């Protein structure tokens, strides 16, 4: 068990190792990367969420903006994009961006299955795949544990058949954590996705340590509480020592807090703006806070 924990920690130090080359996307700097425990594959620790921000329907102007966000994301070395059939047109809009600029080889396509009927899972997955326009998904997660037993059977079978690389489950905002833990203990999962940020820290107690013990990569959703956290902090001054960890904005302050937790693999902030995706990606750059600094950061925000 400690061996897997050590693997995870080693991944923290493995900044920018083995980044696959990406067609059509320049790579200026090597971002902080983590190693996926089950395979040792390196993955940059800031990804891209798509809920709300990418659900723009057939509005061409907004689709172009999303494509530009994707382009800036890949240019900054990003890999993991997360979506779900629940997110309206987001999957289709990702497909639009991938078609427009060509699919980078580094793309790590993370999607979900979200349907109460188990038998209809495979056709939903196939539909999602065609919307993205990818040959296969890298990661499929059972969204919010909906019909998880049936869907996990499907996903494990797909993985065994070589149609899928990783399997996971998701929840958010602390929902069903007890059940979530039970599944983590019983199922061979590659990834789990939960909510974590500088004010929502419940997962630090049990889920993050359990994931490290079980060798599961942790994806962090709602890093900014869907923007509410940043809105609340926007009037407040960043502490002078934020410069010591290389954070020049609240967004970077929070992302650095999240991705510096040893058990966290990837945080997936969503944005509709190129400037924001650049800012978010830049928070992967070293220095990252150590345990003492993380404590100081949390206390500072708590006392604001």
């Amino acid at each position, binding site marked *: 068990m400690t061996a897997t924990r050590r693997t995870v920690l080693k991944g923290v130090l493995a900044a920018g190792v083995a980044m696959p080359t990406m067609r059509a996307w320049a790579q200026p700097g090597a971002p902080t990367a983590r190693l996926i425990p089950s395979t040792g594959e390196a993955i940059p620790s800031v990804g891209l969420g798509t809920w*709300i*921000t990418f659900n723009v329907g*057939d*509005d061409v102007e907004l689709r172009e903006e999303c494509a530009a966000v994707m382009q800036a994301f890949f240019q900054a070395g990003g890999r993991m994009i997360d979506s779900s059939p629940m997110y*309206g047109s987001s999957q289709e809009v990702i497909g639009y961006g991938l078609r427009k600029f060509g699919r980078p080889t580094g793309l790590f396509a993370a999607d979900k299955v979200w349907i109460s009927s188990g038998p209809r899972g495979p056709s939903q997955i196939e539909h999602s795949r065609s919307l993205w326009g990818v040959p296969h998904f890298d990661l499929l997660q059972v969204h919010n544990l909906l019909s998880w037993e049936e869907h996990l059977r499907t996903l494990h079978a797909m993985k065994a058949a070589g149609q899928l690389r990783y399997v996971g489950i998701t929840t958010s905002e602390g*929902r069903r954590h007890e059940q979530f833990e039970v599944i983590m203990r019983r199922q061979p999962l590659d990834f789990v996705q939960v909510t974590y940020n500088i004010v929502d820290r419940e997962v630090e107690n049990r889920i993050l340590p359990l994931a490290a013990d079980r060798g599961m990569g942790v994806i962090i959703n709602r890093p900014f509480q869907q923007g509410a956290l940043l809105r609340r902090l926007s009037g407040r001054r960043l502490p002078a020592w934020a410069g010591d960890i290389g954070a020049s904005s609240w967004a970077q302050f929070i992302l650095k807090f999240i991705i510096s937790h040893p058990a966290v693999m990837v945080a997936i902030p969503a944005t509709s703006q190129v400037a924001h995706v650049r800012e978010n990606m830049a928070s992967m750059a070293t220095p990252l806070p150590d345990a003492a600094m993380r404590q100081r950061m949390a206390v500072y925000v708590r006392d604001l």
Partner: protein
Amino acid sequence: MSEWWTYSAEDFLLFSPRTYWRMIERHNEALWPAQLLTFLLGAAILLWLIRPRPWSHRVIAGTLAVLWAWLAWSFLWERYATINWAAPYVAPLFALQAFLLLLIGGRLRWEVGRAGQGPVGLTLFLSALVLHPLVAPLMGRSLRGAETFGITPDPTAIATIGLVLMAAGRRSWLLLVVPLAWCIGSWATLYTLGAPESWLLLVAVLLAIIPVTRRHAD
């Protein structure tokens, strides 16, 4: 499913305000100048309400039925569905409303009455027809986002509630169910989007429900 308590309206909002208002604008642009036509239809309905003819009652019901069916297809199915996967599930309800308008509405007397809910109904109808299109510019959005009777569901639902409150005849209340449900749903959406005009929808609902409940209490 105890975790449902931990959900809030925001958790179900699928799109940003910008995406939503741009969708309305693009809908308007695609249909222009149909807005003029539906406004004229509204004006004609007003005329028939004031000076009913033997045939005008059926024509009003028929016109409303066509508009609801048209909204089911043009707005919910073709437009709103692009950003809201729930829209296709609502479309059949709009079709049902069209059907009820033909079935029940055809037998009602659609005219301005002085008694009962007549004045309230007329106020709602006129505000939907004339004031609702002004809300977008008043809220600082483009005039291209003006919502008009017969083109988008909000003013159409409010206008229909107003008309049904004026109409006399058996089972007219059945024609309130779908428009009221829409107004409540749309209120929740607009409220979550932070749009102050969400309250217009709630006012329409309250004005419709209060007299109905009072009548049943009598």
